[in-house]
């Protein structure tokens, strides 16, 4: 019985081939645009957030408030003093803690100059922890040693000619704030723009260059057990409130985990994706209206036929099912073609985008959930917009329907 319904529905659709195709074109354009846009948005999201994957879940960073408009090197009204780090280290649950100094400066090579940020590598025991945490390896030369002076390590972005028009290699001489430095190593590509573009110096070298005013830009904290991270965060906040003499709610500092920052960034990206999706979804709605239109026409054209079917004993529900299957089929097939096209479009556009803009961030990602979701959605779309025409068909009076010309 059901298989008869399917056969009949398919036969009817293929009889009105042009109309069926045009209806499906409407659906697949909509589905293709939604799939490709979500795929691109999702890819961009993953590309951006995965840049921070290497940051563990057991890390907290402490910063003074007031650098909303700039990088951590920005001047803030009330900077963190650099001796806090030893006291934070003594807080229960903290495994280690060290200062990070970040300064802006001019880097010159091959008669070209860029302005960017230089960051410190901690000295002493914390050095091993820092290296382990970021897992930095050099592609040429070596990492900095404690005793190195007037030497620096560059991120992998400097190894091609995009920055200075010429690649920088280990052994090259560069000018940092007009002081001559030797590049001792170039890091392996990490996929994170901050590390790949970094200029790393020993802490004492950096402080010699910029002057030591007793304040630090970031205090990095590693907790012993990541399960206790909230408790440790709470304790550090409590300690700093006391240390800086501020009350609850008036904190002029922030203790954040990279994970929390990542979530905040991610929610912005999701918001953008949703906005784009809404605009793209209008075309799906229009495609749905197309299905409704086609089905109304089909019911109208086949009124006589419906009358005959009813006269020889077809129930309301089987008439309903017949049209319901037709519209669902239109949605589903439109959806399948649309998904194929959308996936092609997403990967094609991201490949073109990568070449045109030269940014690895332009990635497409079409997860299985998106494919299955779109498939279900296109079927539901078809059936949803087919419900009213199908219902109308099922409620026709046999006598009236037979009489209709």
């Amino acid at each position, binding site marked *: 019985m059901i298989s008869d319904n399917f056969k009949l529905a398919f036969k009817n659709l293929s009889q009105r081939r042009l109309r069926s195709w045009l209806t499906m074109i409407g659906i697949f354009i909509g589905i293709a645009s939604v799939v490709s846009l979500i795929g691109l948005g999702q890819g961009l999201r993953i590309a951006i957030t995965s840049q921070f994957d290497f940051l563990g879940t057991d890390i907290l960073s402490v910063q003074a408030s007031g650098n909303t408009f700039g990088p951590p090197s920005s001047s803030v009204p*009330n900077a963190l003093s650099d001796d806090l780090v030893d006291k934070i280290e003594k807080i229960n649950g903290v495994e280690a803690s060290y200062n990070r100094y970040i300064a802006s400066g001019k880097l010159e090579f091959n008669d070209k100059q860029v302005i*960017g940020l230089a960051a410190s590598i901690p000295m002493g025991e914390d050095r091993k922890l820092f290296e382990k945490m970021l897992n930095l390896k050099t592609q040429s030369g070596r990492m900095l040693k404690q005793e190195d002076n007037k030497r620096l390590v560059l991120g992998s972005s400097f190894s091609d000619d995009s920055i200075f028009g010429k690649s920088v290699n280990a052994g090259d001489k560069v000018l940092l704030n007009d002081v001559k430095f030797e590049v001792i190593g170039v890091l392996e590509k990490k996929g994170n723009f901050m590390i790949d573009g970094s200029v790393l110096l020993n802490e004492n070298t950096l402080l010699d260059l910029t002057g030591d005013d007793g304040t630090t830009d970031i205090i990095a904290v590693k907790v012993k057990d990541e399960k206790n991270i909230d408790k440790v965060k709470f304790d550090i906040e409590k300690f700093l409130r006391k240390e800086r003499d501020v009350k609850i709610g008036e904190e002029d500092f922030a203790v954040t985990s990279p994970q929390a920052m990542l979530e905040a960034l991610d929610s912005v990206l999701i918001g953008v994706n949703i906005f784009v999706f809404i605009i793209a979804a209008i075309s799906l709605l229009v495609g749905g209206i197309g299905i409704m*239109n086609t089905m*109304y026409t089909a019911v109208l*054209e086949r009124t006589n036929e419906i009358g005959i079917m009813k006269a020889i004993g077809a129930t309301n529900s089987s008439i309903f099912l017949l049209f319901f299957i037709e519209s669902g089929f239109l949605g589903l097939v439109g959806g399948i073609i649309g998904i194929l096209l959308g996936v092609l479009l997403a990967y094609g556009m991201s490949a073109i985008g990568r070449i045109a803009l030269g940014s690895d961030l332009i990635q497409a990602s079409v997860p299985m959930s998106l494919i299955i979701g779109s498939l279900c959605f296109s079927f539901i779309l078809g059936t949803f917009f087919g419900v009213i025409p199908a219902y109308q068909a099922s409620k026709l009076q046999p006598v009236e329907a037979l009489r209709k010309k």
Partner: protein
Amino acid sequence: MNLEEVSYSIKNLWERRTRSVLTVLSILMGITAIFTLMSFGEGMKVYMDVLADEVGADKLFIQSKGIGAPGTDENFYISKDEIDFVDKIKGTKDVNGFYMKIGELKFKKELRYGYLLGFSPDDKEFMEEVFTVSTIKGRSLENGDLNKITLGYNYQLPKKVFDKPLAPGDKIQVNGNDFEVVGFYDEIGGPDDNNMYLLDEAFEILYPESKDKYAMVMLRSDKSIDPQDLAEKIEDKLRKYKGQDEGKEDFFVETFADALEQFGIIINVINSVLILIALVSVIVASVNIMNTMYTAVLERTKEIGIMKAIGARNSKILFIFVFESGFLGLVGGALGVVLGYFISSFGGSIAAMSGLPMLQPVFPPALTIGCILFATTIGAVSGFFPALQASKLKPVDALRYE
């Protein structure tokens, strides 16, 4: 055009009401989206133009190339000597250095951060002109107002910066120092409404290490020289003065008009991408129209045969069907514009309430006419092939069609 044919077309559309309404609905949605997006894009353009007019085409600024927003990077700045040097360049007028830093503001136990702007009392009028602000409450700063401060628009609103709105006479703390609020500036739009304004002397007391290190220099060009040329001239001379090679400057000079234009370009690109996405729905709608028209031709095959048999020309049949589809587009476009108008206005009032005055829709007649014309054209074009098919039908075959 013949009235008879027009009324015949409209009669046909009316007879197939459900289908016509659905077809109109499908084109309406895309047009609504496009009209809404474009009205905001236009509004943005108008906003930028007004801003550029208020600032004036003769203003330039010099800024250091540090990392982050101006004033946040203390390693790069413009010194007093450099300002004096620029002042001597022929064609420059009103060369003013401005201090900028992020300050900590405390009011009734609440702590907030915002831009602190330090200016010399002699330059007040120039500053107000460049930032396009005027006092709305209280007064502006005068000579000797060392522990007085004026604040941006947002501070006198409740739950915007602070929970409670501030009023002239309120006592606040800036970086732990007591200040008295003397006045407020009107709305600029955007983050600049969170700015705080101090006299340069007061700023130097708060930040003694930043004395004579300016985040930004603003100036006016003389009538005798084109601002764009002056920007290049200053860049060239200041580079030599600072002993820097070309391409290695740690500062840049730009006219405000250029800076605004660049901002406008970015907004335009974003808006265009959104409009492009909305266009997809118009394409789908055009497929729908085509579908509707093919169905109409099919249903009326016999009718077409009769018309042809009694002497209707191919071109007449073509016209009837193209007119029908064009009319569907026209109605969809007109309704889309009306709906878009309401959505834009609603969106604009929400944006205004959220403190985003630059997000205001503008409805130039060209936009309305353009959208309706576009929809009509889409309708007519989508209906062209079905209409062509209808016009080419052989009368005998068409009459025989069951």
